[in-house]
């Protein structure tokens, strides 16, 4: 089982399967595109590194999947079978009900009632289990949820219908009961599908970062070990562009280290033999050998994770809107049903007639439209966001985001791209042939600066020039020959104040290309839109005050610098105590506790594992417009949910008096139920229309 995170279309799928199947000894390769992984069956002669190399040759980075990374079982699958049973039974029972309604009499009606009961009772027992189980759990804890009125309604209606069937009664309610279950299960399945889909996306991102290190044995042999198998005293070789998997001290080599993941600090710090390093730091320049001093639970990483777990408690107390509504709704419905039962008894009706009326009230008020109102709206909203490159973890995140009125933004990686990018002016100044040489050189190195340069040049439309004699000297640069001339892309001879690469071509002048972290595209527009949405934003960064002040000036936001993970959490708690609902946007591990503590949180796809896990939303686009877009969609979905509730309430206002007067027949119940459900679904689908973003103040 190999994970291939970059695979996302039919072309990728075909290439991956073909390149693996072409290897000798591989009997089959089957891609699962949803989980972004490929299952390979192979003989003993094939090893995992061979498969990884074959994929690398095809242009896909991959890694073997650890057992603990196996995706959690899907929540939808458990609901599919009950949904199918309810759908089948509802259709067939409806078929017979239609003939009864259109005037079947006597023996025929008896036969149809018995057949309906035969189909419906087992079907209800099977398809209703998700609701019965949940209601039983809620009652055991002396609470009530949406499932309690559903269960009571379904059980009473089924019981009454069985009684009517046995006593040759005129009306049975099997069709309505099954239809109710079918609609409700559809709502549940949609809700679960949304969570599955987002989780698959986030999981695929999570697995991208390789948690492990190349460990050098005493005999000089190198072996890739997963992070959890590392032990203090081991020596790991950390290549340029790799993150440290454990805390340690340098024993060989000199390089610079980016610790922005841990502290938010953007300037790489130099480190040489004896320097202590922390897990999560990024090695920028040259390979170093590091002796491991702490692993797993004792690293700084793990301490931050503990903070995060504590912060998540607050959010789990949030009560979803559907449950809040049902808390009001369930007692009301049960009181009404009881009132009509007692009322009819008092007016001199028999037990049987009073019970029929009470059950009609229960069925007609069963929260069919209510059960669909929230999930359908949220699934459509999540689908819209997904197309825009924003993953939603679950429906309650949309509800929480809609109420946000204050935003705190991390600087490195959130407001900015979080990685060095070449100076656009320097790129534009390169003559076309020089740019092609630069691209050719840059594509042959995995160094972060080279990759950034290659990306920028390729985006500018250049093609790589053909080069020969390519050589990469770690910590120095790449050199090659181009049309007989020596060319090189390397670090400058004199130390420069900022990250810089030097491009040299024999017999020509040299070009200096500066690199700097830059604001995300559209950051200004995005912030203006947030302001237009009534959300006040400010910067909360762990970086030094100088770097933060520069960004604060560029964006015109208030800023707090040098905030530790704990200070970030406290800043959020302070705002929450003032009655604000806080949106936290951040990417680093140092933001993760704050992301977990905020009312809603969003992280870029480039964020640390912990950041992505803690955030409710993950946006994979480069543009910061994802923020206002998510807020707008969340607010729209809440508006639609409220409209849906209003629709359902209006329907009840009409239907309940009829039911209490004893005027509702199974036919009316069936029609009313489908009509209100369809109305709610249709209203929710409006969310699929393109969102209207508020126009930001002109800048």
């Amino acid at each position: 089982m190999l994970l291939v995170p970059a695979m996302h279309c039919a072309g990728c799928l075909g290439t991956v399967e073909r390149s693996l199947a072409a290897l000798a000894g591989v009997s089959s390769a089957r891609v699962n595109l949803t989980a972004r992984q490929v299952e390979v069956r192979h003989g003993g002669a094939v090893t995992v590194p061979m498969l990884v190399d074959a994929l690398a040759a095809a242009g896909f980075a991959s890694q073997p999947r650890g057992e603990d990374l196996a995706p959690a079982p899907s929540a939808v699958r458990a609901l599919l079978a009950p949904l199918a049973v309810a759908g089948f039974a509802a259709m067939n029972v409806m078929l017979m009900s239609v003939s009864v309604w259109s005037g079947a009499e006597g023996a025929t009606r008896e036969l149809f009632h018995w057949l309906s009961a035969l189909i419906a009772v087992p079907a209800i027992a099977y398809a209703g289990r998700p609701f019965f189980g949940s209601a039983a759990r809620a009652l055991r804890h002396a609470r009530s949820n949406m499932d309690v009125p559903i269960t009571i309604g379904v059980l009473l209606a089924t019981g009454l219908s069985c009684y009517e069937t046995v006593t040759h009664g005129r009306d049975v309610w099997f069709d309505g009961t099954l239809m109710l279950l079918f609609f409700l299960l559809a709502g549940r399945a949609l809700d679960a599908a949304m969570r599955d889909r987002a989780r698959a996306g986030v999981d695929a991102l999570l697995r991208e970062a390789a948690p492990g290190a190349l460990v050098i044995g005493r005999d000089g042999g190198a072996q890739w070990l997963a992070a959890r198998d590392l032990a203090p005293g081991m020596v790991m070789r950390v290549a340029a562009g790799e993150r440290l998997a454990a805390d340690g001290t340098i024993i060989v080599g000199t390089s610079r280290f980016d610790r922005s993941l841990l502290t938010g600090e953007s300037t790489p710090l130099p480190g040489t033999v004896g320097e202590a390093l922390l897990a999560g730091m990024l090695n920028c320049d040259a390979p170093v050998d590091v002796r491991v001093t702490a692993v797993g639970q004792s690293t700084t990483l793990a301490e931050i994770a503990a903070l995060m777990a504590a912060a998540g408690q607050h959010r789990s107390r949030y009560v979803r809107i559907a449950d809040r509504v049902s808390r009001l709704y369930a007692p009301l419905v049960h009181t009404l049903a009881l009132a009509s039962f007692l009322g009819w008894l008092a007016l001199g009706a028999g037990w049987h007639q009073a019970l029929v009326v009470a059950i009609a009230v229960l069925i007609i008020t069963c929260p069919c439209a209510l059960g669909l109102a929230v999930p359908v709206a949220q699934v459509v909203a999540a689908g819209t966001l997904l197309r825009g490159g924003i993953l939603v973890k679950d429906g309650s995140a949309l509800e929480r985001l809609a109420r946000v009125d204050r935003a705190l933004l991390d600087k490195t990686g959130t407001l900015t791209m979080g990685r060095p990018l070449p100076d656009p002016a320097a790129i534009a100044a390169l003559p076309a042939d020089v740019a092609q040489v630069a691209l050719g050189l840059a594509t042959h190195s995995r160094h972060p600066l080279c990759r950034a340069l290659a990306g920028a040049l390729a985006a500018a439309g250049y093609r790589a020039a053909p080069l020969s004699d390519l050589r990469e000297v770690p910590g120095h640069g790449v050199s090659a020959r181009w049309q007989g001339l020596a060319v090189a892309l390397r670090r400058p001879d004199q130390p420069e104040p900022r990250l810089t690469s030097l491009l040299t071509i024999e017999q020509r002048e040299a070009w200096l290309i500066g690199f700097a972290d830059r604001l995300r595209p559209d950051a200004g527009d995005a912030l203006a839109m947030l302001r237009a949405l009534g959300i006040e934003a400010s910067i909360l960064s762990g970086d030094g005050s100088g770097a933060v002040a520069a960004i604060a000036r560029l964006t015109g936001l208030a800023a707090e610098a040098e905030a530790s993970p704990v200070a970030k959490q406290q800043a959020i708690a302070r705002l929450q105590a003032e009655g604000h609902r806080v949106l936290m946007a951040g990417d680093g591990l140092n933001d993760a506790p704050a992301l977990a503590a905020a009312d809603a949180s969003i992280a870029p796809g480039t964020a640390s594992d912990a950041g992505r896990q803690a955030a409710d939303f993950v946006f994979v686009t480069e543009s910061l417009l994802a923020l206002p877009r998510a807020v707008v969609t969340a607010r729209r979905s809440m508006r639609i949910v409220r409209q849906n509730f209003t629709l359902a309430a209006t329907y009840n206002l009409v239907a309940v008096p009829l039911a209490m007067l004893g005027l509702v027949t199974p036919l009316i119940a069936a029609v009313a139920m489908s009509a209100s459900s369809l109305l709610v679904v249709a209203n929710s689908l409006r969310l699929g229309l393109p969102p209207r973003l508020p126009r930001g103040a002109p800048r």
Partner: protein
Amino acid sequence: MTSVALLLPLALTMGLCGLAAFFWALKRGQFEDLDGAAARILIEDDEEGGVER
């Protein structure tokens, strides 16, 4: 009444067949990778060195 005697079992059997087919597909894992299934239709199998099934 005779038509009912024929049509009712017929309708029920057909419905049950559909249900059985769905359960069979569920058990065979056909709902495991919906994105992949959508993409797979676009792959040309008749290329040389096609994908092994």
